[in-house]
Structure formats: structure tokens, C-alpha cells
């Protein structure tokens, strides 16, 4: 009996030990960055990288320098504009497309579905080799329009989420509204869309994370300095810092904070939304 209890306690200890290792492995590298961001160049040389500077000797100059960077306000503004416009259209097109594909049978449906599947499968980076010419030829190169239209047209994760949600809404709801003389547009905007709200919330949060984190599209299509996003601002800033780790670390922290805070608030929606595709195929 006692042996059994001992065994159980031992197993629990192992579980907590493993948990501690996991947490340390994730947080460790982030803590190092945080510590570095409050060090002076001198402290960087004479304290261990895994330790913070002595209490009372933390410097905030690195943050002052990053926050004073000329391009940072633009980066926040550009990222904000791209987010608002692309997510608005992602929600609008995503919900209505999912509704049509889930509810109705019509000509070319299979073909259209096939195109959307292709859009989800196409390798993300290499397709830019051909897309580049399209963007250039319609005059969107070096404008905010380039990332916006690419995110709206080809970032399709919302379709899957919306389709799952639509399939859970009983068809009888549409039918009774139809009998009451409601048109399809009204049915969608008055009945279906409000019911999709939880999906919309998840879509918005996940899109914010994806778009803020995206590097390659803004890097490739908006080389102009005025058009940096948060991520390309960081690349630009890192290029200019050449080895000054404390200021670069501060810039990393500034860029990481928005998505990390968003995650800490909405971690449930984010984990559920991002794992939806895997567990119920």
C-alpha cells in the first residue's frame, strides 16, 4: 500500500520535472533575449548571457533607441492597414464562400472547390516566382496593395474553419426564412453570418498572428523603406545594427510583444483554430 503511494508520488515528480524542462526550453531562449535587451554593450561582455544584469543596473536605453527609430511608427501603421483591410475581406469572402460551397449544389462547384484546394496546397514561397510578375503587371509592386491582395486571394485557412461551422447550422433555419419570403442575401447577413461569430473571432485572431508574422510577402513586394511592416522593419533594423545585440534584442522584444500578448489573451481560440484542420479531417 505504502509502496503504491510512493510510486505515485515518484511518477508525479517525474511529470513535473518533464514539464519544467519543457517550460525552460521554451522560455529560456526568450528570457536570454529579454535579458540582453536591458544590458549595455559593456555588461554584455562581462555578464553571462543566461543571466540578467544586476538589479538596479538595467538599462532602458536600448528600448528608447528602438522606439525612437524613424521607421517604427510607419511599420506599425503599415501593419495595421494591411491587417484591417485584408482581414475584412478574408472574413467577408471566407464566410460567404464557405456558405455557398457547403450549402448549395451548382454547376462548376467541383471545379471551384478544386481551385480552392489547389490554393491551400500550393507551396507558399516558390509560387511567388510566378506571382511576382502578376503583381508587377497590375501596378501593385511597392504598394500596400500587394500584400493585401495576396492575403485576401491566397491565404485560405478561413475557408476550412467557416465550412465546418456552416455545416453545424441546421438547414431548416435557411428554409424557414426562405418560406417567410427572405432573400438569400438577407438570410446570409441576418441569420447565417451572426451565427458564424465564434468562427469569425477565431479567424480574426489567427489572421492577425499570421499576417503580423509574415516575412516573405512584404519583404519581396515592398522594398521601399516607407513600406516596412513590423517584421520587415526588424529585418531592416537588424541589418543596420551589425552586431549590437542589446539594441537588436530590444527590437526583437518590441516586435514579438503584440502577437505574444494576443496569444496570452486568446490562447484558447488560437490553439483550437490552428489545430482544427488536423484533428477532424
Amino acid at each position, binding site marked *: 500500500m505504502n509502496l503504491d503511494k510512493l510510486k505515485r508520488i515518484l511518477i*508525479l515528480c517525474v511529470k513535473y520535472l518533464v*514539464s519544467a524542462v*519543457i*517550460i525552460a526550453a*521554451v*522560455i529560456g*531562449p526568450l528570457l*536570454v533575449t529579454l535579458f540582453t535587451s536591458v544590458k549595455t554593450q559593456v555588461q554584455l*561582455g562581462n555578464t*553571462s*548571457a*543566461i543571466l540578467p544584469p544586476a538589479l538596479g543596473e538595467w538599462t532602458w536605453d536600448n528600448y528608447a533607441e528602438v522606439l525612437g527609430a524613424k521607421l517604427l511608427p510607419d511599420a506599425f501603421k503599415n501593419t495595421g492597414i494591411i491587417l484591417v483591410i485584408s482581414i475584412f475581406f478574408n472574413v467577408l*469572402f471566407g464566410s*460567404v*464562400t464557405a456558405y*455557398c460551397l457547403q450549402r448549395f449544389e*451548382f454547376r462548376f462547384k467541383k471545379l*471551384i472547390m478544386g*481551385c480552392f484546394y*489547389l*490554393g491551400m*496546397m*500550393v*507551396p*507558399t*514561397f*516558390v*509560387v511567388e*516566382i*510566378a506571382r*511576382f*510578375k*502578376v503583381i508587377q503587371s497590375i501596378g501593385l509592386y511597392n504598394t500596400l496593395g500587394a500584400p493585401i*491582395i*495576396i492575403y485576401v*486571394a*491566397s491565404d485560405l485557412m478561413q475557408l476550412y474553419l467557416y465550412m465546418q461551422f456552416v455545416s453545424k447550422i441546421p438547414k431548416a433555419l435557411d428554409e424557414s426564412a*426562405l418560406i417567410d419570403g427572405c*432573400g*438569400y442575401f438577407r438570410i*446570409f447577413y441576418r441569420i447565417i453570418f451572426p451565427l458564424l461569430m465564434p468562427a469569425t473571432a477565431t479567424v480574426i485572431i489567427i489572421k492577425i498572428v499570421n499576417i*503580423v*508574422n509574415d*516575412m*516573405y510577402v512584404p519583404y*519581396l513586394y515592398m522594398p521601399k523603406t516607407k513600406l516596412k511592416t*513590423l*517584421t520587415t522593419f*526588424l529585418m531592416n533594423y537588424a541589418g543596420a545594427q551589425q552586431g549590437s545585440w542589446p539594441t*537588436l534584442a530590444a527590437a*526583437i522584444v518590441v516586435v*514579438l510583444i503584440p*502577437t*505574444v500578448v494576443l*496569444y496570452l489573451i486568446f490562447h484558447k481560440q*488560437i*490553439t483550437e483554430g*490552428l489545430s482544427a484542420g488536423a*484533428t477532424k*479531417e
Partner: protein
Amino acid sequence: MKSIRKSRNRFIVLSLAIPVILLLMFVVYPSVDLVAMSFTSWDGISPHRDFVGVGNYVDMFTKSPDLWLSLRNNFIYLAVHMVMIPIELSIAVMLNTKFKGTGLVKTIAFLPFIINGVGMSYAFSYFFSPVNGAFNDILTSLGLSSWIQSWLSDPKVVNFVLASVSAWRFSGYHIVLFSTGLTSIPTEVMEAARIDGANAWQQLWRIQLPSIWLVFSFVMFDCIRGTLQCFDIPFIMTNGGPGYASSTFTLYTIDTAFKYNSFGMAATMAVAIMVIVILVYLFQNVVLKKVFRQ
């Protein structure tokens, strides 16, 4: 009835028109154009493209040793991710035993997956840096200073370092996926097994693993697709260097196009990735599902 059908069709056409046009312009057309481009020697600028037949495909196999070196590096990423799968699965099984704090562990483990990849890559560049780098400091404090290497400039170790960073980023995601799969097993099933006297090991092999087979295959194929297209970690941390020692297939393809203006050749490589990704996808969704159902 007829008017309803008419208004229904109008609704479908009006709703789908713009999304479908955008999809055709920015996804379908570029994908088709990629294939067309792969048969030319286009430089990305000149107005006409010279048709070279399968020349690029022949060159890809015979005259691009660095591309194959890069592909080998992709396999190093894949190998590291594959080694992680049993570990991730064990952690998920452990977290599924419900002790205090599992929620917190899962929340933190998932964090790297949503963190800005560029910021994270720079953070790890410093972590592994030869001067004042945290990793070397950790080794030193453990008395292992003889293990210190040039983590990011030695061709023999650089890919393993980058692949570990990639594992750091995706393992938590996989843990959460496995864990979601395990939680969805009805408690009655596990309960019944326990009453019938199945031990933890039997429960794992007979009930838990077979039930999460779908998640398992998703994670595996996600690893194959993800490592095949791996780009941003080496792009930021080493830019493929030294030389092409830490390049990847996608990085090499992108360089061929935008650095060396060989769009035709790059398109050929892009088609190769596309074909592999689609084959993997079909294998997972058609072949495996059929086998599994039987």
C-alpha cells in the same frame, strides 16, 4: 419555385465572383504559369521567353549540385522532426494524465508556434553566437566547454542547429495536436479498458495510438511538407551559408530566381517542389485513408 432558384443562382454568382476571380489571378494562373515558365530560359525582365524544352529539367538533375546539397539539408530537418515525434507523443500522453498545471504547460509549449519567425530566428542567432552566446555559456556552466563549436558557421553542425530551432518552433504545436486527439477519446472507452485490467502500456498501444492515427498521419505529413518548404529560419540565421552548406531547396530556388534572375530554372525547381508536395498530399489523403478504412 423558379424565382427562388433564380435568386439562389444570383446569390451564388454574386458571392463567389470576386473570390474566384482573385483565386484564378493570384493562385491558379501563377501555378500554371510556373509550369509554363519552367520550359523557358526567362530572366525575369525581357518581354519574351525563349523556349528551351526540358533543358531546365535536365540541368536541374545534372548541373545543380548545390540544389541537391540543399535538398539533403531538408532531409536533416525532416530527420530531426521525425526524432521529435515520439517525444512529442510521449509528452502529450503525459499531459493527458491530468495533473495540476497541464493547461499551463500546453499554453507555453504552443507559444513558439505563434511567435514571429523572424524575431525568433534573430534571437537564436544570438543564442548560438560564438561571442557571448547563451548556448556556449550554458555548456560552460555545465562543465562541457569542450563541446563548444562554431554552431552557425561549421558546415558539419549548422544544419542540425537550424533543424533544432525548427523543432523548437513546431514541437509544441504537435504536442497540442496529439493532446487534442487523445482528449477526444471517450472516457468510457478508457474506463472500460482500465476495468478490464489493461495497464497503461496496453491502453497506449491498443486504444490511444490507434484512435489518434489520423492526427499522427497529419503531423507526419505536416513535417514532410513543412521541412521540404523550410525557408525562413535558414534565410534569416545563415542565409544558406557558409557557401550553400545550410541552404534548403526552397531557399536555393528563391535565390535562383530573385538573386540570379534565372526565373526559368527557378520555376523548374518550384515545379519539382510542387509535384512532391501534391504527391505527398494525395498519398496522405487518398492512399492512406483507403488503407486505413479497410
